[in-house]
């Protein structure tokens, strides 16, 4: 008798990312979808929704590393995203450097800023840290409004960062005689980067640093006792998370081509926290699921708002609640419902389903 295909016989095997054949098939499917989707879905609106979702997914992975894995509550995510966008404007736009350079420059900017904020986490904990990071958003807004040379002040600034990789310009892609629209090119860029960042994050998390982060989250004093340098890992978590957030911001700026200080609000930070909660705290897959869910939901509500009773769709239309208010209310309700009934988020649901089928027909 051969052992069951899912029998794990070693730690290394346990850690493998795509160990079982099912997982490998899943990976292949995902890659195929990534490549083919823009050619099938040519609609600019849905592509732009997906692009924004992808950018959000990158940011969410960063935040999940900080909050889900290391347990540091940070409401200041929007600040680092904004910093990334302005870095892209400077390195990509003003200096005209190619894509890999301005992306890395944005990541470096984020990391430096994260390194500055990180030490606060050493001194403060829990609620105090949360409110200090809240203050970071307002201080950041003040800086963006006043640093006119870099950020254009209140007017905002155009981000001229081009998505050029050597001879290939993803904004105006021409491959094998076919011309692809800007939205299609950007879809590939953004979701390709989602895959890269997710892989990096997953690798970080399943090896030693990841275990250290989780130890810090669970009980940082005990972690110190067993030899995990909590301080170092907390600051490191801030740096990595801010770097990833800055990459998301850079992509946001490059896609939208114009950013202003009004874009980086507390609401944005809260949206990210909601995304990682809905998606699943402490999982990389959850961040992506949450981003797609929260990103696509307003678009879906919008499409079908004419069918939902009581929703006002036009100026002066009838219905007592507007689409915007409905969106906000559903958003708030989602957060509450997920936290009360499904604290492990969408990823938790997914894992439960997977586990059910893994043990099938002996599931219970």
């Amino acid at each position, binding site marked *: 008798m051969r052992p069951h295909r899912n029998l794990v016989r070693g730690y290394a095997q346990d850690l493998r990312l795509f160990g079982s054949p099912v997982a490998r098939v899943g990976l292949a499917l995902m890659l195929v979808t990534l490549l083919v989707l823009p050619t099938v879905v040519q609609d*600019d609106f849905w592509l732009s929704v997906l692009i924004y979702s992808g950018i959000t997914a990158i940011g969410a992975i960063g935040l999940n590393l900080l909050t889900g894995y290391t347990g540091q509550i940070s409401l200041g995510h929007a600040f680092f995203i904004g910093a990334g966008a302005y870095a892209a404007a400077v390195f990509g736009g003003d200096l005209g450097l190619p894509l890999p350079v301005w992306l890395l420059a944005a990541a470096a900017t984020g990391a430096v800023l994260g390194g500055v904020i990180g030490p606060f986490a050493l001194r403060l904990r829990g609620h105090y840290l949360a409110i200090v990071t809240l203050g970071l958003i307002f201080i950041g807004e003040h800086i963006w*409004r006043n640093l006119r040379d870099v950020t254009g002040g*209140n007017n905002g600034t155009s981000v001229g960062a081009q998505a050029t990789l050597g001879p290939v310009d993803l904004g105006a892609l021409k491959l094998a005689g076919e011309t692809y629209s800007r939205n299609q090119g950007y879809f590939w860029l953004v979701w390709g980067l989602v895959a890269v960042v997710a892989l990096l994050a997953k690798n970080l998390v399943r090896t030693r640093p990841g275990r250290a982060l989780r130890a810090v989250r669970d009980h940082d004093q005990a972690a110190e006792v067993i030899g995990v340098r909590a301080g170092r890992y907390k600051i490191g978590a801030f740096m990595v998370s801010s770097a990833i957030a800055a990459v998301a911001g850079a992509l946001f700026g490059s896609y939208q081509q114009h950013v*202003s200080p009004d874009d980086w609000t507390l609401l944005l930070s809260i949206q990210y926290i909601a995304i990682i909660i809905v998606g699943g705290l402490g999982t990389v897959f959850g961040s992506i699921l949450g981003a797609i869910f929260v990103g696509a939901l307003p678009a879906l509500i919008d499409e079908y708002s004419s069918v939902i009773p009581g929703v006002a769709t036009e100026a002066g239309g009838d219905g007592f609640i*507007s689409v915007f208010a409905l969106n906000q209310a559903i958003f708030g309700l989602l957060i509450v419902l997920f936290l009360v009934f499904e604290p492990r988020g969408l990823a938790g649901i997914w894992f439960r389903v997977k586990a059910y089928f893994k043990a099938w027909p002996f599931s219970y």
Partner: protein
Amino acid sequence: MRVVKVALAVTVALVVAACGGAGNDKGGSGGSAGAPNKAAGFDGKTIKLGVLTPLTGTVAVIGQPLTAGNEVYFKALNASGGVAGKYKVELVQEDSQYKTDIAVQKYNKIKGDVVAFTQVLGTAPTLAVLPQLRTDKILAAPASLDALWVREDNLLPVGGPYQVQAINAMDYYLSDGGGSKGDTICTMIQDDVYGEAGQQGIDFAAEKYGFKVANTQKFKVGTENYAGQIGALAGAQCQMVFLVATPSDAAKIWGTAAQARFAPQWIGQSPSYTGALAKSAVAPYMKQSVLIVAEGTEWGDDSVPGMKQMVADATKYAPDQEPDYYFAFGYNQARAMTAVLEKAVELGDLSRDGVLKASGALGNVSFQGLTGDYRYGPAADRNPPRSSTIFAVDPSKPFGLKKVKYNFTSPAAKEIEFKKADL
């Protein structure tokens, strides 16, 4: 307007006749030789125009009446046949929620369905959508009076920019308003791009008329407590203060000033005011100390033909509409867009390139006194209206405004130049 429409219809008919294509040789599709071909947003019978406006959220108080203004103008136009007497107009409205990324998404959603955008509300959403407008070669009319739009080919601005309003306000103050160059003149502006536009105008006027701005106070939108700024202005003993704000903040600012018994001559830029202020507790103070600089005339003033027509249209198609000058602005936007469309029909091309060409070929458009005449044309040559109207607050009037000096242009306002901004 009607004369122009009839003339255009006649011209088109003549052109059609001259081409000898009076018959239906092409069947039901393209029609005869002079009529424009089908294009994105135009199916041969109806022209669709896009509207990106905050229908919800705090800025909806501006977005809703503005969009109503668009709607009413086009309803009246459709009742008399439509653009060039032949093509009815339909509006495709999307809620931008005054957010840049939502505006971009909604723009992408409807850009394929419309000929042009007859309203994009807000400086930030317009700036976010502008790069795509350029790439897609679509024309849009921004609902904002910023001078940034004057030199943009893809934008169709309406009305005298904020800078012009500020200059005319200062001119009024120094002449009929009883002020002089030696007075302590101050400004209080919102800390964002809208506030800076007003400040630019005041600085230009200061240079031309030889006065100095003694004190400038800035504030963040939504502040609850203005004691500090009012205190600073009172301490500087300002005799005149130019205010650039939006209605909710303006109400608090004037309220705080009333409470502090600080009563300089306030002149507020047009978006600082809304009808509700004339019914609030601050109304007596405003009646005494506040003037508003805007364009056009009092709601219901029959001496101005455009106003008479607009009120008639509003009564007919939107009887619940309260007097509101944002409504008038939307109405004017619709008129400007109609002029472009009729030009495009005249040139026989309602495609995107055709619409842009028509915008470049447009000459002077008259708004019948609702706002100054705008000389359109290629962006580099455009000349926006340079006139403004000064209003005083009078709760007995509809919308609470009484005109004090109508449609005047100051010499400095004539001189200000609008350069292409690096957007």
